[in-house]
């Protein structure tokens, strides 16, 4: 404790902090709680507890686990997020070695280039990639009568679009970890008779693994919840956020959306917890 201000000030400070966390939690609680309200509308009054919005298999209270469009969205989100996190962790790891271990000209400039995607608005990333892909696809079709389907809005473009800025996040996480690595550990292993490949496999990668796992989880979650970039690149295979948005705009708010929200919040919380656990270093005694 750096400062010990007077108690009245400290008390009001505490109240402010408390209120802030109420403010943070309020919409999440509101979104989650109505998943269990036995009513057709997510609003007061409370009509009693139900799990229908998760498990009921018939209209009008079709539960999320029986809603085929929502399930499809969930599936696509899962596929997209898996690809994005694998790809971005791979490139992020390469970037970490590149920026921490290698010397090359204009390194600072390239580092800024690496960070840049994080501050470009997601909408712009989405449209710029859409424009380029469509133009290439159109060009190929006209000039070569090639049908480059993967460059049309769809899963591939969504993955690329999300990958374009999520890689910055994974790179920063893995770079931070690699910077902490004591390079003499590699030399020690090499000195003890290990080959270069073995040093990488048994020393460096195990050291980096927690950061790679955490980066992968972050990438997965950010991909899962992304909306801005995805919106422009999505084809017929709409991921969950897009499906939910559609539902919200067309049908209006229904408690099944609360059920999905609750489900996603729990899922994210669990994944976030895992990412914290893997990143925690072994306890000191």
């Amino acid at each position, binding site marked *: 404790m750096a*400062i010990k201000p007077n108690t009245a000030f400290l008390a009001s400070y505490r109240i402010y902090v408390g209120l802030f966390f109420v403010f*943070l939690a309020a919409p999440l609680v509101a979104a989650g709680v109505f998943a269990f309200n036995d009513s057709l509308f997510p609003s007061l009054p409370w009509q009693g507890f139900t799990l229908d919005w998760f498990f009921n298999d018939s209209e009008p209270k079709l539960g999320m686990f029986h809603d085929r469009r929502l399930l499809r969205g969930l599936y696509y989100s899962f596929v997209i997020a898996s690809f994005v996190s694998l790809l971005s962790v791979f490139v992020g790891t390469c970037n970490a070695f590149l920026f921490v271990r290698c010397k*090359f000209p204009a390194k600072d400039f390239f580092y800024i280039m690496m960070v840049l*995607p994080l501050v470009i608005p997601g909408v712009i990333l989405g449209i710029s990639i859409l424009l380029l892909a469509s133009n290439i696809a159109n060009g190929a079709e006209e000039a070569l009568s090639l049908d480059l389907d993967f460059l049309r809005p769809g899963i591939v473009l969504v993955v690329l679009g999300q990958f374009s800025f999520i890689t910055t996040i994974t790179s920063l996480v893995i770079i931070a970890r690699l910077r902490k690595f004591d390079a003499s550990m590699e030399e020690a292993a090499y000195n003890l008779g290990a080959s270069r490949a073995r040093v990488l496999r048994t020393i460096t990668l195990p050291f980096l693994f927690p950061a790679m796992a955490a980066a992968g989880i972050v990438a997965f979650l950010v991909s899962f919840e992304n909306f*801005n970039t995805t919106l422009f690149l999505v084809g017929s295979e709409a991921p969950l956020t897009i499906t939910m948005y559609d539902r919200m705009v067309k049908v209006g708010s229904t408690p099944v959306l609360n059920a999905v929200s609750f489900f996603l919040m729990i899922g994210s919380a669990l994944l976030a917890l895992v990412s914290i656990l893997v990143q925690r270093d072994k306890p000191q005694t």
Partner: protein
Amino acid sequence: MMQRDIKRLSLILLFAPFALWILLLIILPHLGMFYISLREKVGPRMYEFGLENYINFFTEPIYWNTLIRTGSMSLLVTVLALLLGFPIAYYIAKIAGNRTRGALFLMCLIPLWVSDLIRAFGWILLLRETGIISSSLQWAGLINTPIEFLYNDATVIMGLVYTVILFMIVPLVSTLDGMDDAMIEAGYNLGGNGPTVLRRIIIPYAMPGIVSGCIVVFMLTAGSYLTPILLGGKNSSWFTEQIYDQFITRYNWESGAAFGFLLLAFTSLVVWGGLKLSGQTLNSTVARS
């Protein structure tokens, strides 16, 4: 020498993914966007080069008014996020006990793991005419008729602050965390009072975190789409909405590209100005975290 060859080979192998990523997904698309924004459709599959799309933007007040409005509201959100978030970050980094610190920091992060959409949905359930707040007030007898809290600028700003404040708090906590308590104590010891210590010691020290938080928050706000649309309704006049409109509704990609480029240029200009004013660089702020 063989070792040098191996070094060069590994540099090339490591550089390749980076180069492909930046070139194909960042540089080329943006160059392409700029190129397309300079085209003008004069007939089916007929294009002319020119600044027509940009001229359109400046001659149609609704467009540039929207951009100005988006920019100024984003600045307001950034300032609010800083003012509201700084005490929280300071509390987490310096005042809370060791145990509560971690827990509070995690609680700050929770909304980060929840989609914008769900957060906005939560606010809708709270604030709409039949929402929780309105019905609670009615139930308590404070108001007689339901009140619509949604679809006004104050709500949009509140929702945006809510969405982005984490990105302010997280870098602030990490910079303040690195600050030695003894520095603050020395400040008091040498005769400073609360405000002077804050102004002379804490804020200058936290400057990289403040600037980093402000940049990210400003960019995220200016580029946000869901929150203004859902909380502000159809009349929220957010610039990203104009872009979406050009692209999806009017199918005018050329003008959409020009708008996109303008948003990018405008936000970059603001960030650049902010960096110049605060004497920081992109490398010393955002890249650090």
